[in-house]
C-alpha cells in the first residue's frame, strides 16, 4: 500500500473540516475524492501534502508515518501537489518555475529532468522563457503539472485540475493526467466534476460534510441510486 490514511481529523483553527476519514491508495492507481463544495476534499489533500496537519489520526506513506512531516520534506520522498488554482510563481519565468519544482536536485539532474518534462509537455518548451503569469489558463495548468512532476514524485496530488478551465482545455488536461498515469505515477485526484473523475479513476471516495459516505469502483458507484440522485442528476 503506497498510502494509508487512518481516521484523521483535520481542522482549520478549531473547526474540523474532515472527521474520522480513512482511505487507502494502491500503487499505480488513480484514486478520486469527490463531493460537493466544502465536503473536505481539498482539506484532505492539504493534509497529504503537509500544508495542514491532522489533529487526530495518522498518515502512512510507504509504511512510514508522515503525519507531522513538513510540506517541503515530503517532496524529496516523492509526494507532490498540483495546487488548486495552479499557484504558479507568476512573476518568474516558466523555466524558473520548473527549477523551483526541482529544488532538491542539483543543476545537472535538473537539466536531465527538464528534457523529460519538455517531452511530455512540448508547449512548455515553446514557452520556456515566458513569464508564467502571462500564459493561458491551459498552459498554466500544464506548467503546474510540469512543476510537480519534475520532482519525480511517486504520488501526485491533483487539486481540482479542471477548475476555471474551458471544456476543451479540460479534455486536454485529462489526457495529460492519463499520460502521467502511464509513467507509473500514482494519483490522488480531487474533483467536483464527478463525471470527469469517474471516467479516469480506478477507485472513488465520496465525501460529504467532512465525512466519508460511499466508496467503490466508478462502475459500481454509477449504479448507486443515491449517487445518481445527488451528483449525476
Amino acid at each position, binding site marked *: 500500500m503506497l498510502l494509508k490514511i487512518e481516521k484523521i481529523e483535520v481542522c482549520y483553527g478549531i473547526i474540523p473540516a474532515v472527521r474520522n476519514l480513512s482511505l487507502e491508495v494502491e500503487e499505480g492507481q488513480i484514486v478520486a475524492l469527490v463531493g460537493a463544495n466544502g465536503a473536505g476534499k481539498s482539506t484532505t489533500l492539504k493534509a497529504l501534502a503537509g500544508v495542514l496537519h491532522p489533529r487526530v489520526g495518522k498518515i502512512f506513506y510507504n509504511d512510514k508515518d508522515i503525519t507531522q512531516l513538513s*510540506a517541503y520534506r515530503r517532496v524529496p520522498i516523492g509526494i507532490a501537489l498540483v495546487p488548486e488554482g495552479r499557484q504558479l510563481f507568476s*512573476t518568474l519565468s516558466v523555466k524558473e518555475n520548473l527549477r523551483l519544482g526541482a529544488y532538491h536536485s542539483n543543476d545537472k539532474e535538473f537539466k536531465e529532468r527538464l528534457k523529460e518534462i519538455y517531452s511530455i509537455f512540448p508547449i512548455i518548451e515553446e514557452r520556456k522563457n515566458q513569464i508564467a503569469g502571462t500564459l493561458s489558463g491551459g498552459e498554466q495548468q500544464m506548467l503546474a503539472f510540469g512543476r510537480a512532476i519534475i520532482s519525480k514524485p511517486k504520488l501526485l496530488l491533483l487539486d481540482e485540475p479542471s477548475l476555471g478551465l474551458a471544456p476543451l482545455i479540460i479534455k486536454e488536461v485529462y489526457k495529460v493526467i492519463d499520460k502521467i498515469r502511464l509513467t507509473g505515477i500514482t494519483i490522488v485526484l480531487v474533483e467536483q466534476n464527478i463525471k470527469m473523475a469517474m471516467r479516469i479513476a480506478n477507485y472513488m471516495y465520496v465525501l460529504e460534510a467532512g465525512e466519508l459516505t460511499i466508496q467503490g469502483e466508478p462502475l459500481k458507484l454509477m449504479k448507486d441510486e443515491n449517487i445518481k440522485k445527488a451528483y449525476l442528476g
Partner: protein
Amino acid sequence: MQGASYIYQQIFNGIVLGSIYALLALGMALIYGILGLINFAHGALITIGAFCFYFLLFKLHLPFVLVIILTISLGGFVGFLLEAIGYRKLRGGPGPSLLITSLGIYIFIENAIKLLISPQPYAFFNPPFLNRVINSFITFRVIDIFIIIATIVIMICFALFVKRNKIGMAMRGIAESVETAGLVGINVNQVIAWSFVVASAIAALTGFMWGAKYGQISYDMGFMPGVIAFVAVVIGGIGSIPGAVLGGFLIGLIQIFTVGFLPLGWSVYRDAIVFTLLIIVLLIKPTGILGRKESI
C-alpha cells in the same frame, strides 16, 4: 558662477553617497519583499560593520583584504542570528510585531555598542592607499572609486544570484508565496535565513564604506543611513529591488546637490529635503517610482 567641473564633481560625490544608500536599500528591499518587514535593525549592521573593521584593522593590524572578508562574514553571521532568534518565531503573526521587534533589536544593538565600546565617536583612519587623492578633471580619493566599484560588483553578483542560483530564485518565489514555496519543496526557513545573511553582509560592508568616507564612526552612526535607505525603498517602489537601488542613488545625488548647489545655510536641511521628497513621491505616485500597482 560654477564651472562644468564643479557640477561633475557634485554628480560624482552624489554617486558615491548614493552607492552606499543603494546597497543598504537593496538589502532592505530584499527582506521587505520576502517578509513584508521594514527591517530597522538593518541600520545596526552598518555600525557593527564599521566597528568590526576598525578593531580588526587598527587594533589587530590584520591585512586589509582579510579585514574586509571578516567584516562581511560577521555581518552575515549577525544577520543569521537576527533571523533565527529575533524574527523566525514571529513570522505569520501580526505584521507590527515584526516591525516593533526590528526597532527593538536596533535599539538593543546601538546601546550595547554604546555600553561595551564607547559613547564617544572614534576617528576612523583609512589605510594610506585609500586616502590617496587623485586630481584630474575632478578630485577624488581611492576610497571613492573603491565604493563605486564594490557597489557595481555587488549589484551584478546579486542580480546573477537571484536570476541563476536556485536559492536566489527561491527568494523570488517566497516573495510571491511562502505557502507555494513550501509545497514545491523549498526549505523556506533556510532561504529566508540566506536573505538575511546576504542583506546583512552587504550592510556591514557599507559600515566600513561610511567610516572610510567620513572619517568617523560612532554607536549611533547606523540610524540615519538606515532610515534613509528605507526612504529609498519607498521612493523607488516598495517591493522592487531595482527601484530601491534607483531610490538610493537618487537620494545620494539630492543630498549632495543640496549641499553643493544651494546657499550655505541649507546644508543642514539635507535630511529634511529627503523626507520632503518622500512626501511628494507618496502624494504623486504612492507605489513609488518603479512600484507595482497594489490594490489597497
